[in-house]
């Protein structure tokens, strides 16, 4: 800054004629698409929270064994249908850290039920980073350390135990491994089929389009569940849990693609008339290249949003199938399999905690819905 003799101030920096007053705005306009989407998405609080929650849930999956105090099929035959044990911090007004009151079981010979009484004289502190039963991180690395375990000689059932005396809390974490991934595999299958058929129908038109369109219409007009039931009933009962799991996700995906294919087709019908498509064709690009490099990138973001919105349907589908006994079967653990225990009114009346797995289902499905809504709203950053 120099002061001229006549008292004016002048900037010393050399004048750059290229620098524009609109620099700031320019930067915004040139920002990549994903940045704009992210900025807009950030304002959608509910969607953002849901997204973070889902991310954490999926990141947690490999470490389910670490968080859960017990193994998925570890049984405590003295503690069938044990009610939830609250983790407390204060004993008779004194803070002594997280502890539980041990339960003593007693058979009531009039109702033929086990009755559990907490021993409130005898608080037992929880152990942290302790040695539990063996498990594997991500199914590969053997480990024994668990986040927290029951005090010696007693049990910790944060959300109660089920009819075989297995810890509901632990099983929910193990169940998440299957219940949450079933949707991902299903959506991948549905995506591949939907995009392939949708783009072929939309791009080529004519007879192919007609045939694919009819198939879509027929599949869409059929009730899904009876078909799921019929297809899963066809899975041989002697297959292992992993094979059944993959088949179930395949079935869910195979029946889900028509909706997506329809959307892709509609989009292609309008986009294939664009000039850049003709230009690409004239330069000799093959149909496959035009579809993959020029057309699909136009609406990948839309596809992602619609995928997010159809994952919950698959999670609910797996739950329903397993609940009815046609999906995953024990010893596999999924939320639907767990709810199988809560199938009748009697168990909801007497052992309401066996229905706890419905909470993670509701929360996850809601989260996917909110995330999908948020994505859908923020996908057109240039709009509004």
């Amino acid at each position: 800054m120099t002061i001229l003799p006549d008292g004016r101030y002048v900037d010393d920096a050399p004048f750059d004629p290229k620098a524009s007053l609109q620099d700031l705005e320019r930067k915004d306009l040139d920002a990549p698409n994903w940045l704009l989407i992210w900025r807009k998405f950030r304002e959608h609080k509910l969607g953002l929270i849901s997204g973070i929650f889902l991310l954490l849930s999926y990141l947690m999956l490999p470490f389910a064994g670490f968080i859960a105090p017990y193994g998925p099929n570890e049984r405590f035959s003295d503690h069938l249908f044990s009610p939830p044990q609250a983790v407390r911090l204060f004993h008779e007004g004194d803070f002594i850290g997280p502890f539980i009151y041990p339960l003593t079981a007693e058979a009531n010979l009039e109702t033929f039920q086990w009755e559990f009484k907490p021993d409130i004289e005898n608080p037992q502190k929880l152990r942290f980073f302790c040695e539990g039963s063996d498990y594997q991180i991500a199914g590969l690395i053997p480990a024994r350390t668990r986040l927290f375990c029951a005090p010696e000689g007693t049990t910790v059932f944060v959300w109660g135990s089920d009819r075989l005396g297995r810890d509901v809390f632990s099983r929910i974490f193990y169940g998440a491994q299957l219940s949450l991934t079933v949707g991902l595999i299903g959506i991948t299958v549905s995506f591949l089929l939907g995009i392939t058929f949708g783009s072929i129908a939309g791009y080529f038109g004519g007879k192919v389009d007609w045939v694919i369109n009819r198939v879509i219409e027929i599949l869409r007009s059929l009730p899904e569940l009876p078909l799921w039931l019929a297809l899963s009933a066809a899975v041989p009962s002697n297959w292992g849990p992993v094979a059944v799991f993959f088949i179930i996700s395949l079935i869910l995906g195979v029946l889900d693609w028509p909706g997506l294919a329809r959307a892709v087709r509609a989009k292609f019908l309008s986009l294939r008339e664009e000039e850049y498509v003709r230009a690409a064709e004239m330069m000799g690009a093959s149909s496959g290249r035009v579809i993959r490099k020029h057309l699909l990138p136009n609406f990948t973001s839309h596809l992602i949003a619609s995928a997010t919105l159809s994952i919950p349907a698959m999670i609910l589908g797996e739950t329903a199938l397993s609940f009815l006994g046609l999906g995953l079967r024990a010893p596999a653990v999924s939320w639907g399999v767990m709810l199988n225990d809560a199938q009748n009114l009697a168990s909801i009346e007497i052992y309401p905690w066996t229905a706890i797995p419905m909470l993670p289902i509701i929360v996850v499905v809601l989260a996917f819905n909110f995330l999908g809504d948020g994505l859908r709203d923020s996908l057109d950053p240039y709009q509004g």
Partner: protein
Amino acid sequence: MDIFRYAIYRLFTMLLTLLVVSVLVFAIINLPPGDYLSNQIAELRSTGQTSGLAKAEFLRKEYALDRALWEQYMIWMGFMPGPQGWSGMLQGNFGWSFEFDRPVAEIVGDSLWLTVLVNLAAVLFIYLVALPLGVLAAARSKTWVDYTAAFVGYLGLATPNFLLALILFYYGNKHLNLPIGGLMDPIYEGEPMSLAKVKSILIHLIVPTFVIGTSGAAAMMQRLRANMLDELGKPYVETAIAKGMAPSKMLTKYPLRVAFNPFVADIGNLLPAMVSGSVLVSVVLGLETIGPTLLAALKTQDQFLSGFVLMFVALLTLIGTMISDILLVMLDPRIRYEGRDA
């Protein structure tokens, strides 16, 4: 093309679709290796019981299960004479249930009508709930009415149907004295229709209707709200307000009519999901619809029974979709008859 020709065209495409569906259904029920009878024969052989063998072999011949698959299909559908002459689905013979050892028609019997009844009630419920709530949510958008409606709607979408059913049953029984299970009081079963029976059925219908309809109502409400919001911003609404029309009259007279369109069209999209829901809910609640029959038949590979139930369920959805399509054309003059896919 007038409305009748369109209706006939729609009927024709529906029949074609049904034909394709029948092939699909037949393929699916034949997917599991073996069939009910060959399983039974193997079991009888392994346990050394020879008395049932002759009957099982006889049934196998009688129902053409020893023939090639495509022949079985043709006979099942009634396109080709089987061992009993022309008697397939087309001729009104729905086959034989091996599990129950009775004709399929006898087993499903009443439950067909009850299935239709349950689904009709659910459609009615969807309309009755979604219409006022959707309009209200749009008219009072971004207020607590809107948010409450959205929240309830989301919860309805996210709760698995069968759990909702169990919970509602439990609390309905505990606090409102609603009956548990079944579609009518056991004393009315097999009785002729009477006022008391109708009343009993209606009371039993409350929870199932609510459960099956909730997710559909939620989806439709959101759609209607979005459409209404689109319309509410248009100049003609402003004009109506400016000339001093009462808000309720203005809403029903102009924007609602325009936004109403998907309300009818959507039922076609919702129906498959609803029928699915009703199957599941029936299993959980033990309603005498064809849901539990289907599940049992699928588990025991009772192929004619499960095949018939699947076909019936598909037919139900197709008819519903067709009716909604025809209604739509009648209600909305802007829609061209020549298919909407052009």
